[in-house]
């Protein structure tokens, strides 16, 4: 249950409070801004190496190499009307250029006659130091990436045709190059950013001929020891012979890490496309969880930068801007009616809003994909207070004109809608032992744009590492259902997150109805579960279990589970208990009560007094919250099951 402030708790327990609801719309997915880029510049500069950075004063710095010259551009206060066509020549340069910015510092690295040079700035890129040779020729550098660490610390990563090495600066001294312990057959791009450690993305081809986008970390003492290299983790891969290749990664950090890279398909009808992706909220770089890359309509390499209030995409001849954070819309005063159904694997939210003044339409946020956060609460002695329901995402908006009023109907769904909408773009497959259930859920939910964490988890969620696949065109919802079927755990929506929870038979109640909170109505339904005898067939072990009370009532009703992924008796036993737990939690009662503003799915509550229900502990299996201003209706209906 969401924690509630004491005045709100006291008011809702009295059962006759004045409703207070909040609504906010944002252009977000899973709590992460959906960047909507607008093109600010279109020129005729030739394609070539280029880089972008946005220092802490909000200025925009770009660099490119054309005709053997290093060209530099700084726009102090970028706007759609700024001049993005002026470039200052900084001397000769070849093959690669990189930029990094952090606060007032800026680092420009480039290759000149096969030597690695840098120029630095401490005034947001307004002035640059004289060129300094960090590595003399021959470096063999084909690609560069730069990152700024703590004050006085920096690193330049350079990739030859198949090797990556790093040169670090500490104080005012650049050190010697250190090579990575990995190998690739070829490298087609490199990106870096410092946050605790130096985080890198490399594109190229491995020794098996697979093209890939890989993430890795060069330690700076945060999660990895200083100077240590992490393994390479696959972020995107294409098998040898698929004629798909990747290049030109660009990495930036806003509220989360974001990445841009170029995918090229050289089949019968070839194409190139820049893709954008981001990490879910709260994911660490080394978790290697990324949203499924989103296609852009740009067919060339793009550089990505994030600065104060802005995200930028750049090519030598183009510049795109998106506000970050994006706009939000508070619509509290417009709400006429609301119905929210929270349930396992589904649910919805319906809103009816008054838009007679046209403010909602004008805001441009009432559209499919928008994130809706509704808070339910009461007017309390301490003022109006509300607790946020899980985030929903808009699927449908209907504008109506009725009785002289403009009305807006909104249908939104919780994270399950995002999960269901995600269809695998390609084959996903994990070999047995490669990832546990927790990790598989994190990756699949992450691909759908849903941040994932846990309230609690079972041993099976951590120990079970089955072979698993998600086939092209298959919905992530089916995959998540199948993963959850292997463990006793459930997913609870909290804010934009999907949180794993292991329901415990002996869980203590978090709230009390009856004496503690008035009950308006109650129903009790006596119905057997869909099965009361479960047989689990593991790889070599067979076990069965019973719900004896139900067997006594209606005889045995069989459910059989094939589980060839389970090799041992404890594994099969755990699966059996999970199946019996799910059957035990068949909803058998419904309560109607004034809304409990903090109630969450799978909470265990205590019912102390109602003729329809025996007193005891029950688990919340569905919640329906209804508000209707015209009818003065503010109610919550709660489906209950044995704990």
């Amino acid at each position, binding site marked *: 249950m969401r924690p509630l402030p004491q005045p709100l708790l006291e008011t809702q327990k009295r059962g006759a409070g004045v409703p207070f609801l909040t609504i906010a719309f944002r252009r977000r997915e899973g709590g992460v801004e959906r960047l909507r880029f607008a093109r600010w510049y279109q020129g005729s500069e030739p394609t070539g190496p280029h880089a972008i950075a946005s220092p802490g004063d909000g200025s925009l710095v770009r660099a490119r190499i054309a005709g053997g010259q290093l060209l530099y551009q700084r726009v102090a206060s970028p706007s759609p009307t700024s001049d993005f066509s002026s470039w200052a020549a900084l001397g000769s340069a070849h093959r690669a250029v990189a930029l990094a910015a952090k606060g007032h510092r800026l680092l420009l690295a480039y290759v000149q006659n096969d030597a690695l040079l840098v120029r630095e700035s401490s005034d947001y890129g307004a002035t640059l130091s004289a060129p300094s040779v960090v590595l003399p020729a021959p470096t063999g550098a084909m690609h560069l990436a730069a990152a700024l660490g703590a004050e006085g610390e920096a690193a330049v990563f350079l990739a030859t045709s198949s090797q990556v090495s790093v040169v670090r600066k500490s104080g005012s001294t650049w050190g010697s190059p250190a090579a990575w312990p990995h190998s690739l057959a070829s490298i087609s791009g490199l990106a870096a950013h410092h946050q605790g450690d130096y985080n890198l993305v490399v594109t190229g081809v491995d020794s098996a001929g697979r093209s890939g986008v890989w993430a890795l970390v060069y330690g700076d003492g945060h999660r990895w020891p200083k100077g240590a290299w992490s393994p390479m983790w696959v972020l995107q891969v294409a098998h040898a*012979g*698929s004629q798909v290749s990747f290049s030109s990664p660009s990495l930036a950090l806003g509220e989360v890490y974001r990445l841009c890279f170029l995918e090229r398909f050289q089949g019968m009808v070839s194409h190139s496309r820049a893709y954008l992706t981001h990490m879910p909220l709260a994911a660490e770089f080394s978790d290697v969880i990324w949203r499924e890359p989103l296609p852009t309509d740009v067919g060339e390499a793009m550089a990505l930068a994030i600065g104060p209030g802005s995200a930028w995409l750049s090519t030598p001849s183009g510049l795109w801007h998106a506000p970050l954070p994006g706009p939000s819309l508070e619509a509290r005063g417009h709400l006429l009616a609301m119905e929210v159904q929270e349930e396992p694997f589904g649910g919805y939210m319906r809103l009816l809003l008054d838009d007679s003044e046209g403010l909602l339409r004008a805001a441009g946020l009432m559209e499919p994909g928008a994130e809706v956060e509704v808070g339910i609460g009461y007017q309390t002695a301490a003022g109006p207070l509300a607790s946020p329901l899980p985030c929903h995402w808009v699927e449908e908006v209907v504008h109506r004109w009725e009785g002289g009023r403009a009305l807006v109907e909104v249908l939104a769904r919780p994270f399950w809608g995002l999960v269901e909408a995600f269809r*695998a773009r390609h084959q996903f497959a994990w070999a047995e032992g490669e990832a546990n259930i927790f990790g598989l859920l994190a990756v699949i939910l992450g691909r759908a744009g849903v941040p994932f964490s846990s309230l609690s988890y079972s041993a099976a969620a951590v120990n079970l590492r089955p072979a698993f*696949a998600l*086939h*092209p065109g298959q919905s992530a919802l089916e995959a998540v259902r199948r993963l959850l079927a292997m463990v006793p755990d459930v997913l609870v929506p909290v804010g934009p997150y999907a949180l794993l929870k292991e329901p415990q038979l002996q869980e203590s109640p978090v709230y009390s109805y009856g004496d503690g909170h008035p009950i308006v109505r109650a129903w009790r339904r006596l119905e057997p579960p869909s099965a009361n005898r479960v047989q689990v067939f593991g790889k070599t072990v067979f076990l069965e279990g019973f719900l004896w009370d139900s067997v006594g009532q209606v005889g045995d009703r069989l459910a059989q589970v*094939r589980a*060839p992924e389970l090799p041992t008796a404890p594994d099969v036993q755990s699966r059996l208990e999970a199946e019996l737990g799910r059957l035990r939690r068949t909803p058998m009662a419904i309560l109607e009560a004034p809304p409990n503003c903090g109630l969450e799915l799978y909470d265990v509550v205590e019912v102390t007094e109602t003729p329809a229900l025996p007193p005891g502990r029950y688990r919340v299996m569905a919640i329906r919250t209804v508000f209707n201003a015209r009818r003065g209706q503010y109610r919550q209906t709660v489906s209950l099951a044995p704990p």
Partner: protein
Amino acid sequence: MQALWGTVRAFNSTLYTATVQVDGSLSVWLEGVPVARGIPAAEVVPGRRCLIVLAEPTNPRDGVLVAVFQP
């Protein structure tokens, strides 16, 4: 039970498994798919079309490549 169409990309005659490009997956292929022993190794040729039957749709080890053919 689920059936998947695909194209054979590689065959391991020792393990009797195939690498299959499942239709719809341009860049990533399914590796280690057991091949029915009734299919002669010489017939599991890269480029041929094939049919995989999965008892459990999300477990690629719980299925078998049941047919190869040349359309």
